[in-house]
C-alpha cells in the first residue's frame, strides 16, 4: 500500500515540478513586458477562482480538451502519433451538424445520441485512411494526418459555404457563413439546472454542459480498457515494444488499426460540446486548435486518463485566466499563449529528466530488495563500514 503512494507521488513529481518551473519562466515573460508577475498571477487566481462563472467556464473549456487528450493518448499508448485529431473533430462536428439539422421528427432521447454517433463516425472515417495507409503501405501517420487536417478544413469550408449554407438567416446585415441551426431535439442541455438543484447557481451564459460528464466517463472507460482488458494490454505492449508483442503472438497491425480508429472515434466527440450546446450551428468560425492542444494535454498527463482530466482543467484555467489578466492586469492575450507554450516545453523536458531519475531510483530500490546477499560488506560480517 505504501509503495503505491510512493509510486503515485513519483508519477506526480514530473508534472508538478514542470508547472512550478514554467511559472517561474512565465514570470520572466511578465517581467519582459514590464508587468509584476506576482500581481499578474494573483489576478489570474482571484479572477479564476473568485467567481462561479469563471469556474463554470473552466470546466466548459476543459470539456473538448479531455476528449482530445484522450484521443491523442490512445494513439501514443499504441505507439502512434495522431496529429489528426484536429481534422477528425472537424469532420465529427460536420457529421453531427448534418444529422442535427437534416434528420427530423425524432424525439430528443433518440436524436441526440444519434447525432453523437454521427460525430463519432466522422472522426472514425477521417482516421481510417491514415491508419490504412500506415498498416498497408507503411506511410507515416504523422505526415498523413497533417495532410488530412488540411483537407478536413477545406472540406468543411466547402460544405458550409457551398453546399449546406443556411439560406434563411433573416435580412439583418450580411448573412453568416454557416449551416442551418441544429434542431432543439439534438441540442445538449447545459448543466445549469442540475447545478441549481444541488445548490450551485451559475449565471445562465455559462455553457458548462453534460458533455463534461461524458468526457469524464470516457476517461474512466479509457482507463479500464487500457489497463484492465486484454485489448488494452495488447495495445500498450504494441506501443512500447512492437517486436516483443509480435513475438508473443499479438497481431500488431490489427491492434494499431483498432487503436487508431478508437482514437478517431473519441476525436469525433471533441467539437460537440461547442456545437451542440454553445453555438447550435456549425459556422466558419467554429473553434479550431483543440486537436493540437490535446497533444499538450496528453503530454502533460503522461497519457494517463485521469491526468488528462486534470491537465485539461489546467489548460482551461490558463485560457480563462488569460481573459482575466487581459481585462484586469492589461496583459495581452498573446502572453497567455506564450505561457501555454512555456508549460508544454517545460513539461516535455522536465518529465524526461525526472523520469530518468525516477527510473534510476526504482532500479536502485529493486536492486536493494532483490539482492540475495546485500552487496555491502560481504567481507566484514559484523556489518558497519
Amino acid at each position: 500500500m505504501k509503495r503505491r503512494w510512493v509510486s503515485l507521488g513519483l508519477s506526480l513529481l514530473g508534472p508538478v515540478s514542470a508547472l512550478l518551473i514554467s511559472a517561474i519562466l512565465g514570470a520572466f515573460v511578465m517581467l519582459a513586458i514590464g508587468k509584476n508577475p506576482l500581481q499578474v498571477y494573483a489576478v489570474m487566481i482571484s479572477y479564476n477562482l473568485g467567481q462561479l462563472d469563471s469556474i463554470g467556464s473552466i470546466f466548459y473549456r476543459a470539456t473538448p480538451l479531455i476528449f482530445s487528450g484522450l484521443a491523442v493518448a490512445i494513439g501514443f499508448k499504441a505507439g502512434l502519433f495522431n496529429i489528426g485529431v484536429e481534422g477528425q473533430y472537424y469532420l465529427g462536428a460536420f457529421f453531427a451538424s448534418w444529422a442535427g439539422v437534416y434528420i427530423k421528427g425524432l424525439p430528443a432521447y433518440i436524436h441526440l445520441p444519434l447525432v453523437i454517433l454521427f460525430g463519432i463516425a466522422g472522426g472514425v472515417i477521417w482516421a481510417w485512411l491514415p491508419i490504412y495507409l500506415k498498416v498497408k503501405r507503411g506511410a507515416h501517420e504523422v505526415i498523413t494526418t497533417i495532410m488530412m487536417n488540411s483537407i478536413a478544413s477545406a472540406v468543411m469550408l466547402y460544405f458550409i459555404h457551398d453546399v449546406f449554407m443556411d439560406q434563411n438567416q433573416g435580412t439583418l446585415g450580411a448573412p453568416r457563413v454557416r449551416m442551418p441551426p441544429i434542431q432543439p431535439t439534438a441540442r445538449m442541455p447545459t448543466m445549469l439546472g442540475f447545478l441549481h438543484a444541488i445548490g450551485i447557481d451559475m449565471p445562465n451564459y455559462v455553457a458548462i454542459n453534460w458533455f463534461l460528464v461524458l468526457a469524464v466517463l470516457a476517461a474512466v472507460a479509457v482507463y479500464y480498457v487500457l489497463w484492465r482488458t486484454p485489448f488494452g494490454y495488447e495495445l500498450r505492449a504494441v506501443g512500447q515494444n512492437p517486436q516483443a508483442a509480435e513475438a508473443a503472438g499479438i497481431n500488431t497491425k490489427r491492434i494499431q488499426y483498432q487503436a487508431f480508429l478508437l482514437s478517431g472515434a473519441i476525436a469525433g466527440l471533441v467539437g460537440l460540446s461547442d456545437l451542440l450546446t454553445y453555438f447550435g450551428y456549425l459556422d466558419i468560425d467554429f473553434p479550431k486548435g483543440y486537436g493540437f492542444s490535446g497533444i499538450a494535454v496528453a503530454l502533460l498527463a503522461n497519457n494517463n486518463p485521469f491526468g488528462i482530466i486534470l491537465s485539461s482543467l489546467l489548460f482551461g484555467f490558463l485560457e480563462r485566466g488569460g481573459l482575466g489578466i487581459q481585462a484586469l492586469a492589461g496583459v495581452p492575450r498573446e502572453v497567455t499563449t506564450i505561457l501555454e507554450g512555456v508549460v508544454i516545453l517545460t513539461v516535455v523536458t522536465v518529465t524526461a529528466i525526472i523520469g530518468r531519475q525516477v527510473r534510476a531510483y526504482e532500479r536502485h530500490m529493486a536492486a536493494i530488495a532483490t539482492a540475495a546477499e546485500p552487496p555491502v560488506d560481504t567481507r566484514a560480517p559484523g556489518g558497519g563500514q
Partner: protein
Amino acid sequence: MAKTPLLTLTGITKRFPGVVANRDITLSIERGEIHAIVGENGAGKSTLMRIIAGLYQPDEGQIVLDGRRIQMRGPRDAARLGIGMVHQHFMLIPRFTVAENIVLGEEHARGGVFSPREAQERIRRLAAQYQFELDPAELVENLSVGAQQRVELLKVLYRGASIIILDEPTAVLVPHEVEELFANLRSLRQAGKTIIFISHKLDEVLEIADRITVLRAGQVIGTVPASQATKEQLAEMMVGRPVLFHLEKPPVKLGGPPIGVLEARDLTVLGAHRREAVSGVSFVVRQGEILGVAGVEGNGQTELVEAIMGLRPVAKGKVILLGRDITGQPPSTIRNSGVAFIPEDRHRQGLVLPMSVWENAILGYHRASAYRRGIFYDLGRVKDRVRNLIRTYDVRTPDINGRVETLSGGNQQKLIVAKEMSSAPTAIVASQPTRGLDVGATEFVWQQLLQARAQGLAILLVSADLEEVLALSDRVIVMYRGRIVTEFVPGTLAATTIGEYMLGTRRDTPAAVGGENA
C-alpha cells in the same frame, strides 16, 4: 621482472545513481603479465576497466603508474600514459582500409596531404613486429571478426600503448580465432606489453592468464596465480557458492520410440534485402531431445528461428509440428499449438521493458480466460498466479507491480523461461537462452532445458556459445551461410574441427547431411 608493480589501484570506489559499481578495489598489475579480471555480469569488471582506461573517474582511491600517482580526465590522458583499451564492440569504419582505421585521428600528413601508401607501410611494419597476420590495404568490411579484433589491437599499439585492456575479447570469436588471439597476446607479452584481460569464461582465463583477479559485487574477492587455480575454485569465488559444471544428461526414457515433434523440411527463408538467409534446411527435433544449432552468428540462425515461430515469411519448404503443417501460420497459432519460445534478445523480443513484472509474466498468454472475469482482467487472480510462478522459479523481484526493466538480466530471463515452461508446451525453441547471463542464471536455464528434455519435450537450441550447445545437445547441426554443413553427436568431433565447419572451411557433402533427414 621488476618487483614493483607497474600499475597499482588502491581503494578505488565508483558510484552510479543507485549502485556502487566498484567498492574499495585494491589491485596491482605486474609489468609484462597477462592479468585476467573475472566476475559475473554486474560484478564491476567493465567499470573498473573504464576507470583504468580513463573513461570514468573514480569517486575515491588512487591509481599509481610506474611509481607516480596519476589522474586521468579522459581516454586521451590514458593514451598519453600508454594505456589502451579494446572494447567488446568494435569501433571501426567498415568502408575504410585497415591502415586508415588504425591511423584515424593520428594521421601523419606531409604538407597537409595524407598518404595512404605511407600509412599502409607503417602499419605493415607494426603488424610484422608483433607477428599479426593482417593486410593493411584490405577494407575492414571484408575482414572476419577475428581480424577486425586484430585491427583494434593494432590501433592501441599504434598509439603507443604498453598496457592493453581487452573487454571480453573472446565473446565474439570461434574456437580457432580464440587460439589466434591467444597467440597474438603471447607475442605481445613477449614484447614486454602488459595485458589486462576481462572475461567470464574460466577455461580461457586459465589458459592465457598469469594471474587472475576475481570480482564479485564490486569488490575484489582475491587474486590467484593461474598455475595454482582451478575452474571450480574460481567459479566458487565468482558466485559465492560451489557451482556444478557437470551436467546430468541421462538418456530420456519414453513409452515408445521417440516421435518427431518439430520438423523443418527444405526450409528457405529470406533475410534482409530479400537475400536468402536460410537455404533448404531440413531437420527433425524428436521427443526428449535437444537439437543444438551451432554456428557463427549471422549465418541464418535468427531467420530460421523467426520462420519457425511465424515471425518471418517462409519462402519455400515447410515447418511441421506433430505432423501438422504450421508453415505461414501467425505466431499466435504456433504458440497456441504448443511451441514455447525463448527469443534471442530478451529486451527486444522477450519483454516489454516499461511494463510491469506481472504484465510481462503473462505476455503471450494474456488472452487466457483464466485471467479474466468477463472482459476485464481479474487482477487478484492474475497476480496470485504470477506470484506463484515467480516463487516456483525463484525470480527475484521486490514487487510484481514494478517495471520489469528494474530486474537484473538474470531475473528477466528467468521470468521469460518460467512463463514459457509453465505453459505446458510440446516443443521449445530457445535462441541464445543464456546470452549475457551470469553463472547462476545460466545454470538455472540449463537445468530448466534439461528438465524439459527429461519430460519428453522436443527442444531446438540455437546458440552462438559452442560450449553451451555441446554441453546440452543430443545432436548438433552447424549452420554456415544459411545451410546445414554438418551434423554430429557432441563428443565425436574435436573443437577445432567444429570450428572449421563454423567458419565454412569444411563441409560435408549435401547428401550426407540430407540423408539424416530423409
